[in-house]
């Protein structure tokens, strides 16, 4: 699949934002005054910034509000509804923390769960697609949730618990690669099944349907850049897991380890998410003899 930068930015930033908001809402970190303003603001900025980025790849972004309407069947619609509902539910807690109003933290607890559900709905946009076997597995939501929790933990939790969550995320990432690499073969779609010509023999492409590019080839049969997979995976692990772990374990102070860990996490997450798209193969490629 084509690794569109808008979608990579969307899933990474809003994942991190909602992960952080979940910890803030749950009260695992309870800032007050302008610290609260800054931290809640960071969470909201990441979440909203990601959501805005997601509209950049739309053909008609001015109609994006319509995407809220089909929550009964569409995970993309559910994602939009949950994201906005979560941001609204958490707003009074953020306001209370900032201005010292002492309001109930109950909406924070509810909002924390909703924030994680929002990340789940984001991941289901991809995990629901049978036509993309690599994504169509429970490991996709597991990996997305771990990334959100790890990002939030780096920003919100004390260093040792945060370090633990980052390690769990690293395991989930490796697991998603190990499982993902087997998925296309596991699902078992072939050119023979795609065309039904396995009935009479073994098909191969004789003359391509078109020699020019088209939307399908560009969007779903993106094979450029896969040759660097092994190196990118190592880079993703170094930046998203190893460097944050080292920073959290070794660097002194309260802000420095978080800042270094979060920056490294973001670079690693972008690399991992780029791979998530670039490596995913759509079954339509079978018609073209490409994957």
């Amino acid at each position, binding site marked *: 699949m084509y690794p569109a930068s808008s979608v990579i930015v969307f899933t990474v930033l809003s994942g991190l934002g909602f992960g952080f908001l979940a910890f803030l809402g749950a009260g695992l970190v309870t800032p007050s005054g302008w610290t609260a303003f800054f931290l809640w603001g960071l969470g909201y900025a990441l979440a909203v910034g990601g959501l805005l980025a997601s509209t950049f790849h739309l053909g008609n972004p001015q109609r994006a509000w319509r995407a*809220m309407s089909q929550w009964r069947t569409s995970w993309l619609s559910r994602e939009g509804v949950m994201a906005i509902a979560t941001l609204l539910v958490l707003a009074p807690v953020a306001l209370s923390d900032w201005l010292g109003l002492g309001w109930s933290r109950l909406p924070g607890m509810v909002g924390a769960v909703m924030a994680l559900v929002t990340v789940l709905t984001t991941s289901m946009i991809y995990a629901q697609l049978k036509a*993309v076997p690599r994504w169509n597995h429970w490991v996709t939501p597991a990996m997305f949730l771990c990334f959100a929790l790890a990002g939030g933990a780096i920003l919100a939790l004390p260093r040792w618990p945060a370090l633990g969550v980052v390690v769990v995320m690293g395991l989930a990432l490796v697991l998603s690669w190990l499982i993902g690499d087997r998925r296309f073969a596991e699902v078992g779609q072939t050119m023979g099944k795609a065309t*039904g010509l396995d009935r009479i023999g073994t098909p191969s492409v004789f003359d391509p349907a078109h020699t020019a590019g088209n*939307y399908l080839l560009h969007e779903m049969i993106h094979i450029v850049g896969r040759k660097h997979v092994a190196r990118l995976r190592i880079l993703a692990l170094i930046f998203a897991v190893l460097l944050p772990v080292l920073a959290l374990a070794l660097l002194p102070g309260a802000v420095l380890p978080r800042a270094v860990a979060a920056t490294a996490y973001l670079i690693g997450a972008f690399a991992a998410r780029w791979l998530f798209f670039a490596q995913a193969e759509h079954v339509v490629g079978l018609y073209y003899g490409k994957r």
Partner: protein
Amino acid sequence: MTCLPARTDKKLGLAIDLDTCVGCNACVTACKGWNDQGYGVPLSDQDPYGAHPSGTFLNRVHSYQVVPEQGAAQVVSFPRSCLHCDNAPCVTVCPTGASYKRSEDGIVLVDEDICIGCGLCAWACPYGAREMDQAAGVMKKCTLCVDRIYNEALPEEDREPACVRTCPTGARHFGDFADPDSKVSQLAARRGGYDLMPDMGTRPTNKYLPPRPKDRMDAAPLAPLLDIKTTGFAGWLDRMLEKF
């Protein structure tokens, strides 16, 4: 609404005969011609007269070489377009309600005034039946020529999809698969019409009719000449020459 109808009164669709199709691309041209000027935005082309032309099509014809376990290989032309699935994954993923399946005849359509061009429906389709129009930013797909088949301004023989009407070999058949006595249902039953990628759970309406089995060529026609037994002087010469 993107909920799929529990049942549709009709199941309009195509039976595509891979035995008869010669890969002439007339259906591709007729489809583009008709859908350029009727339903929805035109199917745009990018750089059509330049070095790298590309464009939006609702129907494309592939061709495959198929090698059987025994016998000669054959070339099969394979038109690919929307299958108007009963369990259409492109419809349920749509966040806006632009994609829908009609309960009266099962046709899957896009309301282009609502489509935001997110492309998720094209991702959900295993068959590559949907292409985003690069000029209008909305999703295009086969409408089964919904603006022809019910169009009483057209003569009756033209009230079928443009691809079917134009096919010079009669490889494309249009009809109602919900009616077991319809021409397409009969044809699919008789010829072993099949679904593409049935494991995907999409339950396509369109059926593909497999190429009929080829007869086998006998042994090479000149083969008997290789097995002539020589007699007389020629036989003697043959035996003598073999000794050297």
